[in-house]
């Protein structure tokens, strides 16, 4: 299950309490195809989260329009799942109840009870059903967050730096898990990341954004065959190109690109 998302002419300006306004996004145009894996990369403050929140329906644009499968996005909807950077699990619910939250909230827990165990296994958390979020590691917590979003069978999954807070071993594990789920479910994936390697390893297309005002500067097609090898010649060449682009855009001197 997947869906196409069309973003046209989107502006989003924030005005803070002092009356200073920030152009978080200006004139964003982007077509995301059904079942595509797309990454948004760019330095802090270039509007990646803002764009993702607009797609999720958590926020509204001042100008322009966002549509999903042809219909306008006006609010949140179960066909769009969202994974926050961290700390979005409900601490008062155990892992099983966190994962089944969406089924319960939509009133379908009784009829789809068997899915809960299935999704727990899918993210490799068997045996942790009755643990509480504070008892598990950061990597496990993010897997719970992903399973919790996927159990609603969204057509698009929006991920806001879901691996930003993880160590590199856990991160590459989770990347593979994500690819596996994507292949299995066919969900359209929109991933915000700081990590160029992660973007190349996972995506069909990489959307490069630059700040002040937040806009799309370049879209790169990643036409490398899968499974990809992080040390492959083409892989490294693509990384060099992206780095070069950021250097030209003078947006590079950010310590986040720890490559």
């Amino acid at each position: 299950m997947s869906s196409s998302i069309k973003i046209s002419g989107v502006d989003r300006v924030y005005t803070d309490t002092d009356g200073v306004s920030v152009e978080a996004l200006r004139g964003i145009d982007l077509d995301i195809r059904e079942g595509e894996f797309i990454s948004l990369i760019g330095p802090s403050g270039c509007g990646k989260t803002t764009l993702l929140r607009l797609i999720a329906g958590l926020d509204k644009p001042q100008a322009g329009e966002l549509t999903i499968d042809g219909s306008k996005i006006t609010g949140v909807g179960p066909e769009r799942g969202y994974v926050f950077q961290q700390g979005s699990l409900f601490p008062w619910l155990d892992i099983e109840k966190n994962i089944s939250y969406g089924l319960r909230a939509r009133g379908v827990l009784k009829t789809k009870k068997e899915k809960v165990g299935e999704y727990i296994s899918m993210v490799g958390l068997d045996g942790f059903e009755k643990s509480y979020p504070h008892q598990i590691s950061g990597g496990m917590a993010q897997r719970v967050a992903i399973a919790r979003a996927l159990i609603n069978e969204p057509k698009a999954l929006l991920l806001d730096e879901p691996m930003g807070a993880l160590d590199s071993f856990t991160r590459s594990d989770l990347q593979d898990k994500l690819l596996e789920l994507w292949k299995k479910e066919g969900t359209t994936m929109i991933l915000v990341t700081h990590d160029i390697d992660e973007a190349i390893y996972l995506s069909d297309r990489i959307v490069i954004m630059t700040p002040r005002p937040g806009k799309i500067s370049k879209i790169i097609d990643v036409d490398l065959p899968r499974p990809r090898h992080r040390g492959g010649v083409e892989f490294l060449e693509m990384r060099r190109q992206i780095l070069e682009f950021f250097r030209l855009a003078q947006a590079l001197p950010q310590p986040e690109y720890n490559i």
Partner: protein
Amino acid sequence: MDTQTVINTAVLSASPRTENKGQKAEQTAVKKGYRSNTYFLLKLLLTVSGFIIAIGVSLFFPQKAEIVIKDYALSAFGLTLNLTMNDAYIFVLVMLIVIYTVTGLVSAGNKERRKKFCKNAAFRFALGIGLALWDIGGTKLAFFPQPFFPGPAQVIEAYLSDGEYIIQNIIYSLRLYAAGFSCGVVLGVGTGILIGWFPKVYYWVFPVLKITGVVPAVAWMPFALTLLPDTFTAAVFLIVICAWFQIAFLTAKGIQSTPKQSYEAARILGSSQKDLILHVAIPHAMPDIFTGIGSANAMAFTTLVMSEMLGQPGGLGYYINQSKVWSAYYKVLAAIVIMAVLFSFINYIIGRIQKHTLRWQEGVLKK
């Protein structure tokens, strides 16, 4: 029970089992401290010896002071028993010895409980010695100024002479407390949720709550006594308001501090507005609600006893007042002992409920 085991397994398998290995290594070495059986038996002996000394004092220390030792006829199960206050006191001491011995023997098998029992031994010994000294200073020699400091046996005499009457008063107090406090909790949580959730309600109600909340509930007593139909309702009202304001205040705070991200996550997963209150805001506010209940509970005890002393036809506070009029200080002390036990027990119950409800919090599950 079942869930507990699963959680434990989960925690164990997440962390390396170094603790287990350490334990085994120590078992093969010489058993030291509380692990050794001789040591444990000595501690058990220490625990009970204080009470044995207290019994000895009660039986063999000469009764110098002129205190009347009356016989009380107790009848139960068709048997009639003639007891003096000293007999009853010794009975209590024997019961303590039995209880502590049984506790000791039961905890012998469990490492943690065994350790705790050994740790408590010195205090329990001192308790027994304290009772013995109190007995000598109070009943035996009347060394302390009388009738203000009666001995332990005299305190127990209050239960022998007034037993049934005391029970009536306990029930009166409990009824008052249960009616007032349960209403207070329900109203407090209810208004707290409304204040925390609806900005309009917050705007109009919160300042009122904040100002009236600092006034001790008993200050309203004159109004309560004149405006409400009977004294019982008046006292219930006072307990209700002292619990209500405090709990509402903290509930509102807990609801308002719910992170925006929790609401967003829930909305994206399909939560309705009602769901956001019931399944996000209220669970998030639970720790604050319990903080409110805890402090409201302490205030409710104060309000309870004060209103009983100032205008109730029953209750432990009333009993204290009545006994004071007759200078029966041993009865005052007897009522205070009951309050200590009763209120501790209520606190214990609330604590257990809290621990169960907040088992998801860090540091609640693990020791």
